[in-house]
């Protein structure tokens, strides 16, 4: 008999024990209510019908008491509703779909690389190795200015890319939601590496002729997690301004930031970052309650900038020849893991069911008091969320998070497929992933979604959404023409 068989039956029993325990703890209030109800029922039955009638007649209600009671009830209800934080709805969102002419298949990328870096075959080799293991597909896109040999990153071209991406996403959003430009009260734009004057938010206001008393904000430099920072800002603003619409535009403009030197650590972003953008409509109007796709539940932000190593792991600097590029350090993964742990520590108590929290607390107490050798209990986040949107920063990030959070392949499928089809589109990648899940028809009413993003600084931000209505197969969106081909199997190394 192979020795593993007894373990197998043991683990099955353990699974059922665990399930029973979870059910017990999570529904404890209901379970306690049952004996109470039974007790009341028995008491009532014992009394007999006559006594019940007498009891009823003895409660005489006069006018004053009725008015007082109703007044009190109305008052309490009003105060309760006024002091409740406003619900923030995500009405809809639109992701930018780049044109096929901007496609960069592996062969194009390597050819350009060989021509531009013709004196540095080692760097070309390095880029090839990165591309092979990157998890990107053949349909990712770069902006037109980068297709030149050598690339032509002028400010005109950068503005052109910004207009292309942002206006397409905005047009798509406006037509999907039927929103009139004059109804936009708040506009937040986040683009990390390109900040012209006037700002991108002013550019949008100019194009769509938005109102003059609009509250606009242009965030930049905040990395790939800036999308969730914008959502956080929109949430705070919507708490203060009733009956408002907020539009958040997340994008990354690649044109001015393509590294033109040959320092290896800085060539990495060239291989991974691709063109993309998303526009999101948030609202706190009650009328949007039925139309909205999602409801915002939590946003948790963690900033590890105080730690020098974390701060320096994604750094924009000049190389020896004076060319500017972004340097990614080797311990990026370790730092990401640390930042994630901090974020989980804050978000865990907010979203985990009571059963998981209790287990975590018990193992923590046990480790501290009884035996430090007990393995730390990693809470099972699959209990708290149905879908996970992990920022498609790169294959290593997704692998690391899958391992840390003990997720199955299906949970991270959205992230992997978004990385394959669109590349690392920085802050908008979360929205491509969400769109993937919708396009696959997996989004049901009541599903909870966890969006996690990492960014330079080092930040880890996460947002929790709850699905408001079952989303039928989306006919439009960036995945419309290719969703049936997915999921694809992505090998560890694609031989080039």
């Amino acid at each position, binding site marked *: 008999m192979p020795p593993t068989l007894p373990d197998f039956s043991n683990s099955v029993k353990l699974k059922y024990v665990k399930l029973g325990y979870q059910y017990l703890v999570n529904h404890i209030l209901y379970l306690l209510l049952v004996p109470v109800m039974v007790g009341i029922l028995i008491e009532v039955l014992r009394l007999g019908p006559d006594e019940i009638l007498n009891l009823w007649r003895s409660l005489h209600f006069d006018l004053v008491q009725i008015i007082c009671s109703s007044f009190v009830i109305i008052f309490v209800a009003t105060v309760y509703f006024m002091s409740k934080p406003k619900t923030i709805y995500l009405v809809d969102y639109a992701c930018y779909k780049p044109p096929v002419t901007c496609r960069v298949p592996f062969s194009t990328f390597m050819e350009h690389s060989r021509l531009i870096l013709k004196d540095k075959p080692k760097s070309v080799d390095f880029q090839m190795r990165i591309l092979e293991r990157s998890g990107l597909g053949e349909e990712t896109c770069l902006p037109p200015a980068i297709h030149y040999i050598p690339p032509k990153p002028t400010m005109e071209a950068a503005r052109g890319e910004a207009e292309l991406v942002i206006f397409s996403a905005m047009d798509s959003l406006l037509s999907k939601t039927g929103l009139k430009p004059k109804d936009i009260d708040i506009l937040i734009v986040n683009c990390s590496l390109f900040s012209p004057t006037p700002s991108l938010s002013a550019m949008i206001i100019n194009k769509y002729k938005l109102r003059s008393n609009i509250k606009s904000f242009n965030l930049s430099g905040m990395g790939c997690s800036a999308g969730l920072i914008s959502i956080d800002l929109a949430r705070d603003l919507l708490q203060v301004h009733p009956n408002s619409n907020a539009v958040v535009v997340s994008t990354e403009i690649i044109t001015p930031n393509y590294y033109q030197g040959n320092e290896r650590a800085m060539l990495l972003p060239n291989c991974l970052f691709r063109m993309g953008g998303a526009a999101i409509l948030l609202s706190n109007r009650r009328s949007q309650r039925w139309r909205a796709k999602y409801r915002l539940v939590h946003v948790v932000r*963690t900033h590890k900038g105080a730690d020098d190593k974390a701060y320096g792991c994604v750094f924009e600097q000049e190389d020896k020849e004076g060319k500017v590029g972004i340097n990614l350090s080797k311990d990026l993964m370790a730092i990401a893991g640390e930042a994630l742990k901090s974020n989980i520590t804050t978000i865990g108590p907010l979203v985990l069911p009571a059963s998981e929290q209790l287990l975590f607390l018990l193992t923590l107490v046990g480790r501290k008091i009884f035996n430090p050798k007990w393995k730390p209990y990693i809470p099972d986040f699959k209990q708290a969320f149905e879908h996970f949107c992990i920022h498609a920063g790169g294959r290593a990030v997704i692998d690391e998070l899958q391992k840390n959070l003990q997720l199955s392949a299906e949970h991270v499928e959205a992230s992997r497929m978004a990385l394959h089809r669109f590349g690392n589109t920085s802050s908008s990648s979360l929205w491509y992933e969400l769109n993937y899940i919708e396009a696959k028809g997996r989004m049901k009413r009541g599903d909870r979604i966890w969006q996690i993003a990492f960014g330079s600084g080092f930040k880890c931000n996460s947002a929790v959404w709850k699905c408001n209505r079952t989303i039928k197969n989306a006919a439009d969106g960036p995945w419309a023409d290719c969703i049936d081909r997915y999921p694809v199997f992505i090998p560890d190394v694609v031989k080039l």
Partner: protein
Amino acid sequence: MDVLTLLYAILIFFPVFMLWRWVDGKREQECYILDYECYKPTDDRKLDTEFSGEVIRRNTNLGLNEYKFLLKAIVSSGIGEQTYAPRIMFSGREENPTHEDGLSEMEEFFQDSIAKLLARSGVSPQEIDVLVVNISLLSAVPSLASRIINHYKMREDIKVFNLTGMGCSAGLISVNIAQNIFKTYKNVYALVVTSESLSPNWYAGNDRSMILANCLFRSGGCAVLLTNQRALKHRCMFKLKCLVRTHHGAREESYDCCLQKEDDQGRLGFHLGKTLPKAATRAFVDNLREISPKILPVRELLRFMVLKFIRRWTQIGSKGEGSGSKTGINFKTGVDHFCIHTGGKAVIDGIGLNLDLSEYDLEPARMTLHRFGNTSACSLWYVLAYMEAKRRLKKGDRVLMITFGSGFKCNSCLWEVVRDLSDGNDAWNDCIGDYPPKSLANPFLEKYGWINNEDPSTFVVPR
């Protein structure tokens, strides 16, 4: 008392208690300035006439026509001899800035002003809950806000925002963010850091609309500590009464008048168009229209409406000429001091004319322009510091801040002085006795006035 009455008493008491708690919560939403610190760069960064001439001579792309234009611009700019320039100018490398230059310019400011501010107000960096940084022309990875967090070792759950590209009016936009967050969260400290990055943005070409930016902008910065804790009210300096933002980006002339773009030779520069004054006036009038009902007493508003009505009635009959540039409202009834963005002499004169202000009202702005130049978004705080140094601010006084920015935006806000401010201000204390100076004439004219008489065909650049 029977049980039922007692029960009702409790039930009525509870919502009254909730209501009181809610009202009290609303009172905790006020935005106060606890303290602020204006950056004063070291003396070796002072830019005088002699050195300015040297810098202009260094630029090989300029010819006689450009010199004449520059002379006219600088002489009428209202900028004096003691303004500060970035270090890169003194090492002669302004046409080839590196990324490091931009960063080190900002770090010099961060490490100086923020430390002084926190030390003086007794707040430790770990107590800061919100950080808003607005530096328009530089965006780096990690953001400048992250640099501050790293240097001062701030907390993990800090709310940080890094605004860029929003021009000279971004200071009030940052205050707007803080103001909104104060309404949702209790007992928070917010740090707003405002500055402008000049090193990487020197224009090396000869397009006239773009050279102007080179002459006017100077180095400066300000860190402001805001809070909504009522317990600290007695220590605070100002309370925010209202803030109004106007954005005219929807109009083409307003959007295009202040633009960062490449010139014909492909050099990046900051284009200031000819439609700038008109766009500014339009945005300003719109902004005033919105803020006047919030800050002026009812009596003044009624008087203005009656006056306007009478004027229109008489104009219909007589087809008279247009009512000049004066708006007709007397802003001094609701505002005691005016903090005007020091965009240039024309801006200050324009606003003075529009609002019918006296020289006394415009003095802080003019003197700030003379002493510090146009420091972009943080100029307002230098003007405020001047008023403080001159001991003009008494309890109950109201200060109106007006700024303009690219896009085209006009933002304004009203602060109320919470306590008598008689300590003076570090940025001005050493020279406040010299202000206002007897003459604001620019020495450029006497030194370089001969250029106006030169003939383009015979002109040779003096070496």
